[in-house]
């Protein structure tokens, strides 16, 4: 029975997980720690670039400059907007998918998950083709006379949001779908038989029971938007900088690696704080009813 008290057996789990552990340490922890250290160095062109001296200058610079405040705020607002839209689109989408059956279900499932197989960069470039002032959307709208002048979609918040929602909504659908799968197939009939209208069944019975799925889906979408790089950089460009593209520019544009590192670390910290608080909130709210 007591196999774990045997010293050999105590070591074995660690031994077995060591390859993964080493990979994790090598490829994730070390770069992370180096980034963290780098963020405390400073950058001086006269002294040959990066200076390995411990200081808070980078953090002070980011935290006190309204230019950076704006970028952080934009990223945050963008993440909220994309998350909300993904919830509003993804939840009904998952529900409809759940209610479908047979061949149509497979086809729609493929349509929703298929894009995940295509690189984000490629999908975003696709949107760029659609969005341009000579793009497909504007050309068609102009042609049928809905608009007189091209609407601006490239390098606007609207464009970035549309593309990010498209990229991230499958995660939302999958997450909600997973919790719909766990739902008792008779639960809606139970509600109907007790006198509830289909709408009330949906609002008071189905949605509350799939709430954990909606919440974890929105967590994924939020985190992915906050750290999204390809889509904002292609569709937002220099005009609509987000935190990730700013860090990138500091590294490769200004070559101010320490400042870029500080921005990256701040993004990570903000993300972790938001996610853990949110998680705590979910756990507190649902621990009793859901395991």
């Amino acid at each position, binding site marked *: 029975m007591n196999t774990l008290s045997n010293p050999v057996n105590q070591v074995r789990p660690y031994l077995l997980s060591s390859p993964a552990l080493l990979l994790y340490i090598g490829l994730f922890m070390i770069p992370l720690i180096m980034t963290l250290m780098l963020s405390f160095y400073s950058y001086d062109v006269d002294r040959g670039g990066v200076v390995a001296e411990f200081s808070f200058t980078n953090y002070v610079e980011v935290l006190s400059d309204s230019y950076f405040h704006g970028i952080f705020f934009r990223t945050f607002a963008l993440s909220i907007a994309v998350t909300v839209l993904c919830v509003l689109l993804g939840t009904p989408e998952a529900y409809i998918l759940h209610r479908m059956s047979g061949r149509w279900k497979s086809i729609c499932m493929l349509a929703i998950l298929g894009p995940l197989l295509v690189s984000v960069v490629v999908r975003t470039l696709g949107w760029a083709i659609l969005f341009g002032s000579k793009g497909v959307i504007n050309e068609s709208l102009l042609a049928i006379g809905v608009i007189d002048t091209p609407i601006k979609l490239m390098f606007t918040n609207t464009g970035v949001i549309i593309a990010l929602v498209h990229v991230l909504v499958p995660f939302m659908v999958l997450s909600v779908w997973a919790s719909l799968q766990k739902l*008792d197939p008779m*639960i809606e*009939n139970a509600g*109907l*038989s*007790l*006198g509830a209208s289909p709408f009330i069944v949906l609002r008071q019975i189905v949605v509350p029971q799939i709430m954990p799925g909606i919440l974890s889906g929105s967590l994924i979408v939020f985190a992915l938007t906050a750290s999204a790089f390809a889509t904002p950089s292609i569709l937002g460009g220099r005009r609509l900088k987000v935190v990730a593209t700013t860090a990138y520019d500091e590294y490769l544009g200004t070559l101010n690696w320490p400042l870029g590192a500080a921005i990256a670390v701040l993004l990570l910290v903000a993300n972790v704080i938001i996610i853990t608080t949110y998680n705590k909130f979910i756990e507190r709210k649902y621990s*009793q*009813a859901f395991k």
Partner: protein
Amino acid sequence: MSFLRLEGLVKRFDDFVAVEGMNLNVEKGEFVSLLGPSGCGKTTTLQMIAGFVTPTQGRILINNQDVTHLKPSKRNLGIVFQSYALFHHMTIFDNVAFGLKMRKIDKVESDERVREILSLVHLKDFAHRYPRELSGGQQQRVALARAMVIRPEVLLLDEPLSALDAKIREDMQTELRSIQRTLGTTTILVTHDQSEAMALSDRVAVMNKARLAQIDKPFALYEHPRDSFVTEFLGKSNVFEGSIKDANDGLSSIDVSGLNLLANNTDHTIGQAVDFSIRPEKIRFVAQGKGVIDGTISSRIFLGNQWVFQVETSIGEFSVVSLNTSHIDIDQGSVVGLDWTPSEVRLLTREVA
């Protein structure tokens, strides 16, 4: 006029016939079971009554009102699902109160009724728990309370006890019956467990291959099954193929594999092929040569309260059940006589294949 009437109910899924020509009359306050093997259309029938499945043909009447096309939410039926289908995000109290809330019954009365029904199912002290925090048997009672609190016209139960283990199941059967009696609700129970159907119901409707095979009181059904399917679904029986040879003085003689066996007269005609059926518990052991037929004991099994013997005879194998009332010293291999009274024999019309 019966309280609940199914008139020529048919359900087809594409080409597949799930329910065919179902006629059923249930009186007010009556407890009727739908009994049948898996896939015979019990659930489909129940779901048509509930309104979750639309009949292809036929009518459903409750209290003389045609409800065939009424929405499920307007039928005022109480349903207990096999999986219970409790609302996991609500407390037990809110689960039970849900139906009353939908009916816009005022808070004071609603609270009172919920408390009343919860104490009837012995769950008063669990009102503020969540479904996940209850045992299977307790969840089952919540489902029952939730269905009953709205004072439904008809209570529909789809294998409500099948997920419970044997002991709790028996307790729940007793409880279900007593609650149903107390409230006097017309009830239809779907089950494939024949002892459950017989223990609980006023009448049992046996279904086979999408059709109603026979409906009657449990005892009458067991004693006078119409065909060999109903016979064997309700319990073991020794069935042999034979044909009516001749009939006089109230007794018919039946030719079974060359042997002449007696049975009470039936409306079968001479020469007609029948199934000769005698239940294992109706057979007595007698001395060799003193009974209807002799046989050799090929096996015996002890089941605590009874013995089950397999007896090899010239017309085939018999199964004989004896209560464990006194010491029975019939060993494997011994030759015995089997005896029964002709009135215990049932002659069943052979199903033409």
